[in-house]
Structure formats: C-alpha cells, structure tokens
C-alpha cells in the first residue's frame, strides 16, 4: 500500500513536471509573439493575424512576419477580385478610382508581396520597404475614392490591408 501511494505520488509529480515544462516552452514562444507584436502599431491585430496560423507556435521571427505577409496577400487577392467585378458592373463615375486602385493593388501583388516573401529571410530592408509601400498603396486607393462623388466601397478592406501592412513592417524592422 505504501509503495502504491508513493508510486501514485511519483506519477502525479512526474505528470506535473511534464506539464510545467511544456507550459514553460509554450510561454517562450508566446513571449516571442507578444514581444514582437508590442513593437508594431497594432498589438491586437498583430496577435490576431499571427494566431490564426497554427505554425506560429514554433515559428522564428522571420516566419511570423511571413504569416502576416500571407494574410496581406490573401486580402489583396480578394480586393482585386472585388475591384475587377465593379469595373465590369459598377457605375461610370467610379471607374477612374477603380482603375487607380487596380493599379495600386497590382503593384502590391507583383511587386511588394514577392519582395517581402523573398527577402524577409536574409535581406529584410527590402521587405520593410515593400510593406511600407503596401500601406501607402492601400491608403492611396481609399483616397482615390475621396475625389469622386460615390463613396468608397472598399473602406473597410483598404484600412485592414493598410493596418496589417503596418504591422508586418513593424515585425520586419526587428530583423534589421
């Protein structure tokens, strides 16, 4: 009976130790994500975007940045689809703004995103510039609608991309 209780205690103690060290490991990865996001303009957004990718748990800083870049890529693809749709079916007075936005987001897709994907590891200053410019392209798209009578149909999307690009830039700055 004594042995049985000791054994149970030992097993319990062992189980607790294992759980603690796993928790400590988790805490270290969380710390990286938390510290990284503190150095960006939008902590909450940063955490949200990163945590959506399960690989974030063990990702080094460069890959955390790439998680955010991937989100920007997805949203850029979506907004381009939206722009093209409106170019076909939207009102005449919206066309000049749509043409501009198409050009801005095309630059993000063919220019900025590939640069960020290729240079975050090993030459991050180019990735930083690419993310800074991505924010500007999104802001310029929204401004393009400011010049025409109809309101912007992409205010939420433009702001989201601009904000996430600023977050990506903040993360990448830590790599320099």
């Amino acid at each position, binding site marked *: 009976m004594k042995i049985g209780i000791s054994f149970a205690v030992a097993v319990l103690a062992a189980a607790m130790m294992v759980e603690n060290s796993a928790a400590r490991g988790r805490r270290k990865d969380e710390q990286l994500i938390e510290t990284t996001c503190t150095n960006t303009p939008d902590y909450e957004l940063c955490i949200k975007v990163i945590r959506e990718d399960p690989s974030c748990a063990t990702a080094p800083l460069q890959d955390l940045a790439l998680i955010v870049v991937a989100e920007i890529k997805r949203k850029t693809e979506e907004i381009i689809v939206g722009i093209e749709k409106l170019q076909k079916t939207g009102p005449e007075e919206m066309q000049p703004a749509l043409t501009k936005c198409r050009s801005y987001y095309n*630059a993000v897709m*063919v220019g900025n995103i590939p640069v960020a994907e290729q*240079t975050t590891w090993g030459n991050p*200053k180019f990735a930083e510039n*690419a993310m*800074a*410019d991505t924010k500007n392209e999104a802001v310029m798209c929204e401004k393009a609608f400011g010049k025409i009578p109809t309101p912007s149909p992409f205010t939420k999307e433009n702001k989201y991309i601009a904000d996430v690009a600023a977050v990506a*830039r903040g993360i990448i700055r830590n790599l*320099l």
Partner: protein
Amino acid sequence: MYFNGIYHLFYQYNPKGAVWGNIVWAHSVSKDLINWHALEAAIFPSKPFDQFGCWSGSATILPGNKPIILYTGIVDANNTQVQNFAVPANLSDPFLRHWIKPNSNPLIVADDFVNKTSFRDPTTAWMAPDGHWRITIGGRRKRRGMSFLYRSRDFFRWTKAKHPLHSMAATGNWECPDFFPVSTDGVTGLDTSVIGPKVKHVFKVSLDLTRYEYYTIGTYDLESDRYVPDKDMIDGWNGLRFDYGNFYASKSFFDPSKNRRILWGWANESDSTDKDVEKGWAGIQLIPRTVVLDPTGKQLLQWPIEELESLRRENMEMSNLELKQGEKVEIEQITAAQADVEVTFTFASLDKAEPFDEKWDRYDAEKICREKKSTVGGGLGPFGLATLASKKLEEFTPVFFRIFKDKDKHLVLMCSDASMSSIEEDKTKMVDGKDAYRPSFGGFVNVDLKDMKISLRSLIDNSVVESFAAGGKTVITSRVYPVMALYGDAHLYAFNNGTETIQIESFNAWNMDTPEHMNHELKD
C-alpha cells in the same frame, strides 16, 4: 572595373520586373564612362552555390592583368550566403561577355561565429607586403556591425582571421564594405593594394538599418591587420557620408588609365511601387565621382568625373548679380530639367547668421532642414537654387545653404529638400511622421567662410538632382517626381530668403545633352 581600355559596370538587376528580385549581375561596358552598352548578364543563378541568387561582390585585377570576381551566392530559400568566384571565359574578348564559375565554389562559407544570412559583399582584394591577399566581407554579430577579414596565398583557399578588419557596436548589419587607400597629396588615385607613408585608408559601410552609408579615414595597421580610424573620426551612425541623400550600396574602383579612384552609388526610386511597375524600371546609378582626400585630411572630396563635361552644350553665364531678401531670379535660356549648374555665392558679412539652437541634434541635419525649409526666413541664408521648379513654384526642389552662428564659429547647413517637389497627391506620411517619399535631406559643410563665399554645383536630370557643395565637401542626391515642372515646363531659379544680401559672384549653367549610347544592347 577597368580592363584593357574598357570600363565595366556590373550591377544588381531584375530582368523580370521593376522591383527587387531574380537578381543577376547585369553587365554594361563603356569606353568613356558616359556612353554605355548593355551586354548579357555576366553572372546569374546556375549552380548549387548560387541557385537562389547572385548578390553583390567585387572585381579584383590579379597580377598578369587577370580579372576575377568574388560575389555572394545564395544557396537556399532562407537566403543563406556564401562567397564564390567567377573568371572570364575568354580573356581575348575585350568585352568579357562570358564568365565561368568553377565547381570548386563556394570559396568561403560562414563558420559558427558568422550569421550566415548576414554575410555578404566581398570587397576588391588587396595584397599586403607579406604576399597574402586579403578581402573583407560585411556582416554582423547581434547588433555589432562586422567586417570580417579573410586571407589567402593563392586567392582560392581563404582563411578567416581571428579578428575582423573592423567592427562597431550598435550599428546593425554592415553591407557593401569598401576599403581603399587615398593619397595624402589629395590628387592621385591609388590602386587598392597601395600602402605607404603618404597614404591614408578609407573604410565605408552601408547600414542596413538606416539605409545610409558612413565612412571614416584612418590607418591600415599592418601589424595587427586591422583598420584603425583616426582619433577624431565619428565611427557610427553620425559619421561622415559620401552623400547625405539617396545614395546606397556604393563601391569605388581604381582607374589606372587616369590614376583616379572612382565612386559609383545607387539611388533607388522615391515614388510608390505602382509607379515603378507602370514605368517598367526602378533604380539608377548616379554620375560616377572621383574621390580624393581633402587637404585637411579629415574628410574626402568628391567631384563628378570630367568626362561628364563632354555632354555640356549651350552655356549661360552671368556674374555679380545681387539677391536681396525675398528675391529670386530665373535662369532662362537653359533646359532647366537637364542642366549642369555651377554657382558661387558671396556675402559681405557673417553678422546676420542666425544662432544655432543648442537643443538641436548636431548630427541630424535632415531634421533641421525639415523644420527650417527654404521658405522659412533667416539671417545668412537660406539662399541657393530652386531646381525642377514650376513657373509659380507650386513645385520646386530647393538646394540651399543656411549659415548658423555657433559660439565662436559658424556652421554651414546644406539642404536638398524634396518636400515641395511634386503636387501629386500620393504623398503619405510614414508612421514616424516623416514623409519618406519626399525627404528634406541635409548635411553640414565643413568649410572655412573667411573668403565669404560658398560654391555649389548641381547636376539636374529630370527626376534626380545631385548637388556638390564647396568643391565636393558635402554632396546630396535627391530623387523627385514633379508633374508640372517637366521638360520644357521646368524652371530654374536662384533665390535668397535671408536678411543678408547675397551676391552671385559667378554663375555658369550648361544644357546637358543625352549620351549617344544609353545602355542599349550592344549589337555585334
């Protein structure tokens, strides 16, 4: 590099787009540094040791007049960096079109003490008196900028020295190191291997973190095999720069045909990516400059190569023109969008120089230029040129001086301000409040004002303004994109917004022609 009567320029180039990517060593040749012909790429990914990229490096001319290139190859998707060599396939081809990369590559890989994604840009090699070659490679250890030193007897087996050639704490990653001798005679250029009593050395790095470069002047200590900056040199972010504007990844080379050292610099675009994609190109090499030691020994002097003058055409001269406070004069009869302008400003007294605010950071000239723009009045200055200006100055890029009184001496601030360069509304603020697309570049000019004059030369070329103060003591390059001040609608003014009257002692401007050959492909 110079080889058998022909200048070769190799540059990082993306054949597939107007952004960074797919980087190869593009190759252009020239007989006069002005007219260029493009050849096929000299080095491009083709082997395991450069499959993922062919990044920067340098050429060395070995004894027997044999060029060899050392360059950084990328070996995986994480941009791990190694150093490779390439040699001409055919030395009797005057254009050295083809280069081979033997399978003995890579020559140098990062050891455990080197961050293998911050390990690049091998320099031109120099041979020390002990008969061994040396090169230095840029990198970092945590936040310490490093210039690793490697030695070799035969140029193929390299050993890393225990200590770097030079390093500096808290400067971040060092790219594109450049290490070269300058003659104390202030005139002659020197081959990279020259050492001697009448020689000082220059060490320059490009800073990844800030996107600008800085240099120091010092001694190459043969015993310790280290570079030692002179005592009063500022070794760090606040140090001297080749150029206080848009100028990066620079590299110098020795031109034996004219015994001069020539400096190449890269200026990227300051507009948004969509503009670059639209126009289909991005990035320029600035006009090559000769580099010599200033008579004071405390800085370098740069000046556009003399061959540039072959593009000068119609000339417009004037002298003894007075500019009172608030006055400006238009320089007519000049193609203001494409001109070479030399002007000397004089003044009767330094008394009206405004005081230098003690609270200002002496090493942040850009901030002072941002706060005290050309439209803000002053005492002795602001005066200078308004380049790429629209008729009513809706757009202009001023290059100007403002002189301050600072205790018992005077400080001369030079600014090249892009903040009013374009009325186009893609101007947006960066997070830190600065408009990175339209910066107000600035640098101090360390010049003696006892002659009560200061000179300025500006090379104006549509979307770039390269300005040289006081014979090349301080240089600032700006990229600007006016939408009104284009071609025939661009104007040039001289102005003065200070209370002290300024005299234009001499003014010389030339229309600049375009070169006959502008880097089109060479047809056999």
